[in-house]
């Protein structure tokens, strides 16, 4: 083992035999990928954390949940044996993988039995941050988003906020591209009608 490599290993690993320390850390955790050095990760994190948080917050309509799921997504990304390496697979692949983890975490969260379902979340959740300064986008989009199904919200966000293609959305959501095309078309029609209705309501209230 080279001295630099030895330095990179954590102190607890020296207490273990090589087959276990290296092997276990690599296989069970899979995250001792040299490509995922701290600096590379920090740079990737600074570029991807905010979009990921936005996706989670808008899909779940719960900023606190988005905070938790974002952290969990990155920890799982770092620990995943099959995660794309930034140096070899590129940041786009890593970002897709990260969004897929986040999507699965959201799905798990929604599947868990809870006192309230996503549809029953009170309106206050949407105004947790900056209640006083609601913008046009918030006023129009949030009521419309509330009436969409969770999967539709995720799909619309990935397509229109993140600008992902049908194939990329399919990868993130674990669907096939043809299904995404159809589901997205329907979701788009639905939210457009809702946005127009919200805009008409807002105009009516003003006049």
């Amino acid at each position, binding site marked *: 083992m080279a001295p630099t490599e030895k330095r990179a290993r954590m102190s607890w690993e020296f207490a273990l035999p090589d087959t276990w320390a290296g092997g*276990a850390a690599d296989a069970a955790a899979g995250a001792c990928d040299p490509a995922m050095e*701290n600096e590379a990760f920090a740079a990737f994190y600074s570029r991807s954390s905010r979009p990921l*948080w936005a996706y989670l917050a808008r899909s779940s309509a719960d900023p606190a949940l988005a905070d938790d799921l*974002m*952290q969990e997504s990155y920890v799982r990304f770092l*620990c995943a044996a099959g995660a794309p390496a930034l140096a070899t697979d590129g940041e786009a692949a890593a970002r897709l993988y990260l969004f897929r983890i986040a999507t699965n975490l959201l799905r798990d969260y929604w599947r868990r039995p809870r006192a309230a379902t996503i549809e029953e979340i009170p309106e206050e959740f949407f105004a947790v*941050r900056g209640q006083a300064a609601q*913008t046009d986008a918030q006023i129009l989009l949030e009521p419309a988003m509330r009436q969409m199904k969770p999967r539709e919200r995720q799909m619309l966000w990935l397509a229109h906020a993140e600008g992902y293609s049908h194939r990329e959305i399919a990868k993130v959501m674990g669907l096939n591209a043809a299904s995404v095309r159809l589901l997205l078309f329907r979701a788009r029609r639905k939210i457009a009608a809702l946005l127009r209705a919200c805009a008409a309501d807002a105009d009516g209230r003003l006049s």
Partner: protein
Amino acid sequence: MLTSCRHENELRQLMARGQWPDACPPELRAHVSGCRTCGDLVLISEAFQHARVESLAAARPVPPAVLLWRAQLRRRNAAVERIGRPLLGAQIFACAVALFAAAGFAGFEARNGVAWLTLSYWHDWFVQLPQAAAAQWASLSAGSQAGSGWSWLVLLPALATLLLLGSVAVYLATDKQ
């Protein structure tokens, strides 16, 4: 069912480049005002882009070092758990061998009746142990010198030890694969 407009891709590209609506041809603007598909696309994309900008500003990500530390902690726990597994297996196996030996001993002694359950039997056994062990060793040495094989008293623990070590070695080999 999936009716799309031929201007949709062009419009999508213009919006992605930030050229909508100011830097786009007036014909396209006129088309968008009359086309439902393109109108929906503009409406939704603008709403989501505004929402995205607001959400990006609202995000408060934790420092990356926290996540690296949490990931390291999780990896360490996984490694420790992985190490503990073969040890637990060996312990279970050793316990099973000990139980088997105890059961065999009890069965063997039961053939001589229930006298071995009394205290006086064990007192006599301890008193006679040095002579019995010496006699056993002498017979074992004689047997091995004559090449007639090993006493089961030596063979059984040796086989059990070999089995124990062998199973641990097989476990580690398969686990590594």
